[in-house]
């Protein structure tokens, strides 16, 4: 690493999040789930990092840790070079305008009893001293920016379709012109024709406001379209990360390869080659396998995989993989 790199907007070092399961008064019986395990990531200004993985892999928990919506158990989190691992809510407040989140289900994240105009005015009430008319102007501006109409401010969330509600969720995240937006499955509840509209909108906003996105999704094709870099998670850890094209066209981790080959392709002529069908089910996160978490389902597993946890190491330009026996490039 000789060339100077820009300072990352977000940096995590060995970030972990553990949940205690069960409420037994005896500590011995309390069990611990490692939702996120020792994740070290740099997210650079202007890039879009996709985080992919299957349900329960910790991608949403990681997303919530990045904006400190959940407490971090160990490791460190920096935002613009400042350590905010254990910053108090009061200390975080000025930073909140810089980091926003868009959720999967816009119906659940918008208060059904309040008008859209009120919902969108909240960020201004909290963070800026504006007169009522200034506030309304800003709200209308936001609605227009996400391709809704100014008069939609008077309506309630239930009067909108799913795609429109997600536009409102995006408008709210955008209100204070943040630097970072963590979007957790923002299009997975939408029909495919609407999904394309929302992806296009997110792309336009990225260019217009020089946003940095963390885009969490289980749909690889959406991530391939939208992200510049991707991190693949399995049982709480990042197993592979690198430029989207490299990771998806020549995956080096056996799990990424299986994930990639499982995506059904809407094409009858160019069928993908031999599909890798994974054996068995995801192991219980309460009792994760030793060594490499994936060894129980991996075709290339050997003794070393059962004993030693592989660490992310560089295999190609900006392409890292955590595997003792990576696939050929």
């Amino acid at each position: 690493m000789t060339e100077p790199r820009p300072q990352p907007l977000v940096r995590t070092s060995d970030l972990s999040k553990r949940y205690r399961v069960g409420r037994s008064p005896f500590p011995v019986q309390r069990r611990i789930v490692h939702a996120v395990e020792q994740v070290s990531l740099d997210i650079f200004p202007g890039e879009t990092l996709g985080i992919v993985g299957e349900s329960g892999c910790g991608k949403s928990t990681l997303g919530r840790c990045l904006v400190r919506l959940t407490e971090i158990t160990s490791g460190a989190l920096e935002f613009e070079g400042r350590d905010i691992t254990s910053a108090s809510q009061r200390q975080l407040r000025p930073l909140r305008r810089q980091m926003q989140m868009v959720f999967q289900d816009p119906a659940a994240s918008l208060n059904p009893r309040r008008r859209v105009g009120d919902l969108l005015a909240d960020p201004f009430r909290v963070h800026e001293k504006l007169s009522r008319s200034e506030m309304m102007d800003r709200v209308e501006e936001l609605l227009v920016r996400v391709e809704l109409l100014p008069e939609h401010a008077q309506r309630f969330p239930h009067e909108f379709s799913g795609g429109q509600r997600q536009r409102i969720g995006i408008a709210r995240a955008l209100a204070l012109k943040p630097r970072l937006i963590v979007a957790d499955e923002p299009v997975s509840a939408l029909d495919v024709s609407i999904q394309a509209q929302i992806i296009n909108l997110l792309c336009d906003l990225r260019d217009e406001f020089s946003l940095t996105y963390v885009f969490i999704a289980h749909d690889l094709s959406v991530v391939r379209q939208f992200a510049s870099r991707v991190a693949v998670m399995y049982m709480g850890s990042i197993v592979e990360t690198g430029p989207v094209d490299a990771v998806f066209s020549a995956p080096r981790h056996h799990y990424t390869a299986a994930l990639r080959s499982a995506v059904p392709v809407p094409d009858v002529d160019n069928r993908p080659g031999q599909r890798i069908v994974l054996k068995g089910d995801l192991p219980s996160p309460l009792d994760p396998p030793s060594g490499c978490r994936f060894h129980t389902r991996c075709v290339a597993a050997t003794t070393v995989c059962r004993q030693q946890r592989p660490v992310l190491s560089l295999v190609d330009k900006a392409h890292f993989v955590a595997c003792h026996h990576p696939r050929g490039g």
Partner: protein
Amino acid sequence: MPTDAPLLVVENLCISFRTEGGVVPAVSGVSFSVERREIVGVVGESGSGKSQTLLAIMGLINSPNAVVSGSVRFLGQELLGLKRRALDAVRGRQIAMIFQDPMTALTPVHTIGDQIIEQIRAHENVSRTAARKRAVELLDAVGLPSPESAVDRYPHQFSGGMRQRAVIAMALSCNPALLIADEPTTALDVTVQAQILELIGRLRDAFGSAVILVTHDLGVVAEVADRVLVMYAGRVVEEGGKGQLFREPLHPYAWGLFASIPPMRGPRPARLTAIPGSPPKPSQMPQGCAFGPRCTFRHEACVAQPSLGGAGGHRSACFLPQDSRQDLRRTLTGRIPA
């Protein structure tokens, strides 16, 4: 009965609901047939009427405000309007259905085995021991690991993929001639989905079942279907063999669907070609072609309702001239379809 007759014939199926705001159509004039051992994919977005169509076939629409008309003939027998008892001889036994969420199809208080045994004994006069033996065989056939012990476990002890396998085993327990699957893999992770799709593809060989697979995912259809129906706003807008429909789709809505999907290989388009607007509400159906307001190629003829037409088993409901369709499609995306 001649064995070359279609297994299932649906003709002019209409479903509407009486509401405070008047009668609202959900499905309008849907006709299709399913041959023996055929896998038919039904694609459409939410509200396209695909699930209602399936429910009507199974006689599961029992809202007092629903009006169902048309004809659903299974092996020559009319199912619409059949009495509950007569219907029960057909469904579960000859037509089985699986749903998106396997947890709602299983009761949490009985073991998987008991639920499959109940299903077998409801339709066949066999002993409990024999039914249990069948249950173990079925669980083995759908690929559940260690079926002898799985049969005594409860649904909550299974993962989502295992539950969907168990539900499929239950659906197959009476060797149905037709399996109706409503979004069977939507709630599952993609690697588990691959396992289940592989299983559904195998059913035809192992059990001789025909399958109607409803999904919103064109990738899933490309994976397993022989023939495809595309539904929009309660109507079938295109129907064809999988090869025909994927190589040269005829309806602008199908073009839009294909163009909306981000490609998994090759260059990434700078922008996706989205379909503008959103599907019409059933209470506010536009005049004429329901896709008209979102269609790039709308013209004067589109104020009328197009009917499904075309040659060689590949039909579409659109007024555009047949021979210029593929050129028009290219202008939509700027991409040359593969």
